[in-house]
């Protein structure tokens, strides 16, 4: 049995498949379960010729059931957390079936518990012949990740995988194909432009799209994760971030709002408006934020200028905004990220990173953005 899946790549030899929901979890109403299962199958139907029909008796290609511990196959569940569900690759009989661990708490939309839609969509990938992907942004990545089902779009990695088995959806409207499947950024992409960079209790966090790379002293390879895996209610595609070593929080900025997290937890009262820092109403977003450890000031970059905020007094310093090049040699244009690392100040400008001595403002080096991402 262990070698079977290495030798063949099972797929269904037909495009019309049936499914049946054998029983229900008490965690959700039957209509919520029905809706979650239907939407989870639709995720795959949207990008392939596959079509799913629900039946209410007999034996369907994909039998769906909830069970705990030993539940009739050779693969017992393990109680709360751990393994959430499993499914069988396409084949007659048990093949295609999906089993959900009844000891989990399944939910319809909220992220307290496991969103059944997300778990089901992943398991139906197995039911259709896919195995796990090592792309952390993929639906077929083996670790559960919360996503909002209402805005979920099947990532590119999964689309490529399922279309390699069944081809594209012949009914897709070429004029309105729908949202582009999201791709997972590559830290060693020479054209990489980071959204933001921050420290976080001894680590470095590099933000890009809905991901971040986490690099800490002992690691040689930065760890890529979804931002929402770490902070479920954090924004993605952020503008700026910094760690206030004064308040021991990390702050994420997007548009006119700022979120503060203490460890994993959203700080009470956030998100709040960036004007709470004393920035003028005319500032609709910031491009980068930098906490200067020596002075205890936070610099907010907006276009080709910057503001200085006193973390202790919680007030904006007088005499700002200033032009960035008044302090940073040659910095005449907009920046994309800013941070301090080992006593030096780094300011990202598109694909390049400028290394400064903040005390003197002198430009020491021009580096590639991915310089600290250990490529």
């Amino acid at each position: 049995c262990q070698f079977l899946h290495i030798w063949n790549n099972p797929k269904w030899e037909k495009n019309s498949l049936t499914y049946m929901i054998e029983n229900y979890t008490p965690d959700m109403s039957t209509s919520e379960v029905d809706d979650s299962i239907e939407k989870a199958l639709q995720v795959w139907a949207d990008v392939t010729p596959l079509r799913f029909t629900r039946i209410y008796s007999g034996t369907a290609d994909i039998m769906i059931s909830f069970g705990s511990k030993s539940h009739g196959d050779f693969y017992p569940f393990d109680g709360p957390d751990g393994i959430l569900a499993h499914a069988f690759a396409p084949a007659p009989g048990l093949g295609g079936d999906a089993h959900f661990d009844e000891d989990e708490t399944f939910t319809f939309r909220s992220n307290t518990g496991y969103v059944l839609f997300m778990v089901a969509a992943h398991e139906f990938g197995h039911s259709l012949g896919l195995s796990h992907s090592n792309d952390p942004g993929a639906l077929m990545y083996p670790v559960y990740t919360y996503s909002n089902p209402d805005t979920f779009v099947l990532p590119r990695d999964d689309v490529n995988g399922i279309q390699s088995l069944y081809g594209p959806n012949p009914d897709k409207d070429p004029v309105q194909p729908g949202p582009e499947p999201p791709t997972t950024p590559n830290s060693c992409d020479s054209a990489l432009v980071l959204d933001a960079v921050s420290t976080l209790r001894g680590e470095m966090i590099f933000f890009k799209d809905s991901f971040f790379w986490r690099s800490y002293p002992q690691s040689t390879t930065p760890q890529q994760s979804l931002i929402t895996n770490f902070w479920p209610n954090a924004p993605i595609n952020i503008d700026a971030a910094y760690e206030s070593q004064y308040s021991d929080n990390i702050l994420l900025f997007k548009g006119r709002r700022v979120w503060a997290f203490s460890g994993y937890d959203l700080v009470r009262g956030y998100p709040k408006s960036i004007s709470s820092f004393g920035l003028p109403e005319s500032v609709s977003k910031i491009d980068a934020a930098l906490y200067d450890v020596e002075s205890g000031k936070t610099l907010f970059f907006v276009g080709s200028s910057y503001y200085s905020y006193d973390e202790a007094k919680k007030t904006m310093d007088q005499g700002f905004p200033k032009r960035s090049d008044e302090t940073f040699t040659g910095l005449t244009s907009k920046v994309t990220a800013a941070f301090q690392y080992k006593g030096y100040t780094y300011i990202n400008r598109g694909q390049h990173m400028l290394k400064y001595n903040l005390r003197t403002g002198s430009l020491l080096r021009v580096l590639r953005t991915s310089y600290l991402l250990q490529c």
Partner: protein
Amino acid sequence: VPIPQEVTVEDEYFAESYLKNFFNLTEETGPTIRRGISPVSKKLSEMQRFFGLKITGTLTADLATREKMKKPRFGVSRHQC
């Protein structure tokens, strides 16, 4: 800086069970006279490579490997035999 945590016996049992469940670690049968990389270490390296972790083949290097093992996850694609 994160304080390196000692690897407990429970950690080792958990890791072995994880590797059996998700990375086809098989019980070693027959004479164990050949020296070489232990199957556990080999599978641990495979798991670390899959998740983009630092590849050490051991649990002691850093917490990331153990943290990843503890995350809620999906079972591997099963095959009816």
